[in-house]
């Protein structure tokens, strides 16, 4: 692999950057792979990456129907935090957050992880109690969080209106080591690393059927031909239901549009990420200077990747109330992604009723932060048949009633 560094950039500059090769290959699909991952989003690519890195499984193809990273991985608002309430969630999200800290160095690609701190505002007594509880749980889970005072909130984020007439800020759950990263870079960096390990990342290739014999997966059919495999990992977020159907099982998943928007860029005015769950909105400022804004998911199931404007209105209303200065900024662009929601708002990383077929989905509105950790666990599950991080996230937990309910702690789980 061509190493990236400031030195390499300087060297290339002198020859008009003619020497840069492809970041990842553009291979034709082979007839058979040891392992096929469907979906070149962050989770699919991270799974492949760790299969290679941790377990030496490199005869791997990652199959993508569009362009890699073009699903929710390239559409999200990039909040990274691990201050979840339930033990299994805190474990996997914290693992993931920690992996983000070293990702740029691990894969020699600057994913711009920026641990600028994430605060979740408490604006009702109920929220205060909820976040105090989360802080207590986090202390035992090894996740560094704090419940902070309104004064500290204002210090950390001066543009916040902490004494709004309706929902004055009563405090916040603060995770100083949470933050954001550059979403595209995560997908690109992993794709490059996978390609470098000899794996095939195959774009513009849609999976149309799953083949099996005697309850065991044997391969897939795609728009670019049939591909055999010994192990199949389905990692397709909003389209999980479609793929599960091909593999002959059903999922407790609903697919809905989640929207986001950005303002025009302005000079830095907000160093932290703020989530205001009572009023339903959150905001951070990107390195380009845009205010990155999100809110709740649309209320009806669909696959269109565009949402309804009234949700945008609701979100912006909430944020103008919370950050009055944004009233005179302009919305530059709105968009949507299809998120895969489970009933307990926790993911599924699991074996499936089809032998050799594994699924990783259900990250819903909040799986960007989980990408490296989820790949870590999924790879382990596929390689070894079990992973402590994935253990609680089985598909049959719904049958047993063993939910991992995160909606408990916060209305919005980005």
């Amino acid at each position, binding site marked *: 692999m061509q190493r990236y560094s400031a030195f390499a950039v300087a060297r290339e500059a002198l020859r008009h950057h003619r020497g840069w090769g492809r970041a990842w290959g553009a291979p034709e699909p082979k007839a058979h792979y040891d392992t096929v991952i469907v979906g070149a989003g962050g989770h699919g690519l991270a799974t492949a990456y760790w299969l290679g890195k941790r377990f030496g499984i490199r005869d791997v193809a990652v199959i993508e129907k569009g362009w890699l990273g073009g699903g929710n991985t390239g559409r999200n608002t990039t909040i990274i935090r691990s201050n979840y309430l339930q033990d299994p969630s805190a474990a996997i999200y914290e693992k993931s957050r920690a992996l983000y800290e070293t990702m740029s160095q691990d894969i020699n690609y*600057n994913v711009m992880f920026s641990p600028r701190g994430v605060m979740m505002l408490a604006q009702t007594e109920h929220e205060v109690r909820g976040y105090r509880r989360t802080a207590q749980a986090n202390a035992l889970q090894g996740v560094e969080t704090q419940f902070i005072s309104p004064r500290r909130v204002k210090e950390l984020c001066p543009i916040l209106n902490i004494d709004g007439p309706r929902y004055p800020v009563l405090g916040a759950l603060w995770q100083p080591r949470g933050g954001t990263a550059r979403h595209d870079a995560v997908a690109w960096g992993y794709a490059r690393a996978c390609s470098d390990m000899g794996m095939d990342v195959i774009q513009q290739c849609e999976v149309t059927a799953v083949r099996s014999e005697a309850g065991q997966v044997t391969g897939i059919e795609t728009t670019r031909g049939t591909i055999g495999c010994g192990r199949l990992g389905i990692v397709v977020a909003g389209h999980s239901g479609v793929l599960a159907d091909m593999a002959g099982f059903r999922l407790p998943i609903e697919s809905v549009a989640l929207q986001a928007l950005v303002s025009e860029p302005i000079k*830095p005015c907000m160093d932290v990420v703020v989530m205001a769950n009572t009023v339903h909105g959150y905001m951070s400022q990107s390195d380009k200077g845009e205010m990155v804004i999100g809110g709740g998911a649309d209320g009806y199931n669909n696959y269109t990747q565009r949402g309804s404007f009234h949700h945008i209105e609701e979100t912006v209303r909430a944020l103008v109330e919370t950050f009055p200065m944004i*009233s005179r900024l302009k919305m530059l662009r709105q968009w949507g992604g299809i998120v895969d929601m489970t009933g307990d708002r926790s993911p599924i990383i699991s074996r499936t009723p089809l032998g050799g077929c594994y699924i990783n989905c259900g990250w819903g509105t909040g799986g960007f932060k989980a990408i490296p950790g989820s790949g870590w666990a999924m790879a382990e599950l596929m390689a070894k048949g079990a992973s402590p991080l994935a253990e609680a996230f089985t598909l049959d937990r719904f049958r047993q009633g063993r939910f991992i309910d995160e909606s408990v702690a916060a209305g919005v789980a980005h």
Partner: protein
Amino acid sequence: MSIRLNSGGRRIDRDRVLRYRFNGRDMAGFAGDTLASALLGAGQTLMGRSFKYHRPRGVVASGPEEPNALMGVGEGARFEPNQRAPATPLHEGLVAVSQNHWPSLERDVGAVNTALARFLPAGFYYKTFTWPRAFWKHVYEPFIRRSAGLGRPPEEADADRYEHFNIRTDVVVIGGGIAGLTAARLAAEAGLEVLLIEQDTIWGGRAPVDGVEIDGNPAQAWVDDTVAALAAMPNVRLRLGTMAAGIYDHGYLLAYERVADRPDSSGAPRHRLWRVRARRIVTATGAIERPLSFACNDVPGVMLAGAVRDYLVDYGVSPGDRTVIVTNNDDAYRTAIALHRAGLSVPAIVDARPEIAGALPEEARQLGLTILPGTGIAKVKGGRQVTGVALCQQGGDGAVTQEIACDAVAMSGGWSPVVHLWSHCGGKLIWDAEQAHFRPDPDRAPTGADGRGFVVTAGAASGALRADAALSDAAAAADRVLTALDQTAGDASPPRADVPSEAPLAPVWMMPQRAGADLRAKMWLDFQNDVKVSDVRLAAQEGFTSVEHAKRYTTLGMATDQGKLSNINGLAVLADARGDAIPQVGTTTFRPPYVPISMGSIAGEARGDLFQPIRRTPLHDWHEGQGARWEPVGQWRRPYTYLREGEGVKDAVNREILNTRSNVGLLDASTLGKIVVKGPDAGRFLDMLYTNMMSTLKVGRCRYGLMCSENGFLMDDGVVARLSEDTFLCHTTTGGADRIHAHMEEWLQTEWWTWKVWIANLTEHYAQIAVVGPKARTLLERLGGMDLSRDALPFMGWADGTLGGLPVRVYRISFSGELSYEIAVPAGQGRALWDRLLSEGADLGVMPYGTEALHVMRAEKGFIMIGDETDGTVIPQDLGLDWAISKKKDDYLGKRAQARPHMTDPDRWTLVGLETESGAVLPEGAYAVAEGTNANGQRRTQGRVTSTYYSPTLDRGIAMGLVWRGPERLGEVLTFPKVDGTPVRARIVSPVFYDPKGEKQDV
């Protein structure tokens, strides 16, 4: 240098001088000017700095698509960054500042980035800045953040107001150019209701500038007549200054009206957001000119040819004394001719086409203008202002053939239809090779619920660029709308235009065609974001060949103009690098809004006190007058406690509790949900909704009920009263009322729609007052009117009657463990009852109490609270509420779920009371630790605190919690570490701390 000419300018009024400030300098312009035309008129060509390299920039366009000339406009609470100068009307006293430079526009330190440009190609930041690790956060990122961004942030809350309009109409026509006017007129004549909107502040679009003649008259005259005719029609609404921002599913259109975008708005809203439902939408949004990609095409003084014409004709402003025209089409000759006619010098028309034939070039030739066929610009000279151009052969590699001194360059790469709105909701495009642009594919329009297209394009927006074609296309568009809406055409006949014929353009995506790396690295595609031809090629070389990858890797089209000027040129470069045709590459997704709209307008009036409705109980004002400290509960405000002079919050709560337990307290319980369920199947319905049996409840009696989700989790609780054989009144929690009402309706409407049940939410119809404490009965008896003795109204009974002359319904229920009555009166009489209770009870020590006292008293009594003991993961069985779960019923919501293995697991955490050994209050939300760690290295736990309070009644901390096998372990001591690790030890006890036998409430 740009100047104001002595004559000309159809939009300005030279008799009205407007004074304004730019970067602290006093300036003057004319009424009718935009900020950009006024600045150009004053010789100010330098207007801003680019995003990445901080290159000096001037205005390139004349409309809202402008990428360079963005300004901070206004002051203080009316300051707004990133206003497009060409779309900002000038007004007296306007204050503007240029952006993205330090210390000044003229001298900007950030411009060193230009010198370093070759080290900062597309995506360089993905390859560097990774060592040492901590440097990203502390060094690199802060630096990047500071040099990026554009305008400075507003600092104050917005002083202006905004509003929303909602309308329905048959047809919306977007764009008031000649095509839009025609389509609107034809639709209106046919009797349809029409809304015609135009983003500019005048009607007519390009035609009047371009000297088009319609039906034998100058375009302006035709426009004036048509607008007058439309204005006179009752079925037509006309709006200037109103931009269509987005098209959404089902004919939903968002339009953005700049009503009074100036400080002296005298109370009018600044912006108005129109939410329109239209049966059909006509986009007559015209076309936008494309720049040409030649080296240093971003130097101030290089402008779009159409924009040069606009400034000249509309504002009497010339961008320079000597303007070189560079083009690949005939339209730009209009600019050459107009400049020449205005007495300005046009040293050369540089035309990339080897053969030049059309009528407009011929006219130019006759005027004596020099035309250089097959020629291109090798490089523009000058730094902060164009000083000349070096020419070359278009087919070559850039060897300079000639240099021409000039101070402006007017460029035209052809025109692209504005397809954004068409595309927002799924309309598809086709590549038009002849005109080298994407245009809407009429066969693949965005479709509505009926599967038919609901957007129609008209005029240049369809790709019909010339005026004659635009008018016939608009007529055809109107026809399609009429047909779709089953309407017959009116009398008006479609207009016709007279225009000279034009020769086809020659696609030119790079100038010269075989430019080397040096030149490519200076050809700007996206001006604002500093994306050059070399960047897009680098992206392709590195495998970012998907158009979306290339966009994201280079940031092409991601600036505030969202690629309006750059996208097609960028696609062409990418296609070339891939060796594909442009349509194979495709476009990126068009997303709303068309041009950015203010957040203020999106929020509308909903801010401050109007942010969300405040729901007030009938006693609200009384509470406010008595020092109530409010707690928001949903949209309600409830008194948390009533503070007396000099009293702390905790003291107040303790006082209220002790008084209620020894005398009598009053609680405003009006916010409790009250849902009436009525009908022959009401009992059966409630049996399904509640875990207990409601159908057997006797009229006159109350029963405490639990409601679970399908997953078995406890979601709400409350007392149900049977009012008559077929009528029940269900009380819900305050926060739950709307949700439970919706939940009931959902089941009724989607699952049990044949059941005869009706539901109404009566929450606000009644004021409800809890009269609580040992002296409660005495107090009520003083009001007189009904027998409230134990025999007449036993515990868990209710009765209608009068109290103090007021019609009441009295429930004997208790949430505090005391003798307690909840009294409902019609909302209008709530205050009267409250006042009577206070005055009659003065000597009994009557005193109101708030929600915190309520919480503490229920915890003392071991009653659960939804939201505290429950959190969506708790089933009634966990809370020892098995007694409220009917074993006799076949089914209820949640029953099947509660039979799942994990739900019946004896290892579940279950409800207990907790008492610290020291008597201190347990920390909120604390967990009880167990030995060791789990497989993921987390400390094991065995329980958690769900409610914890200081009990003034017992003078010690009390708590409730869920503990592993809790009730089996009474007396055991658990350790609850605080967040800082300090252990707090607490004993497992019964959750009922107060009056365990229940003697006090049933007296």
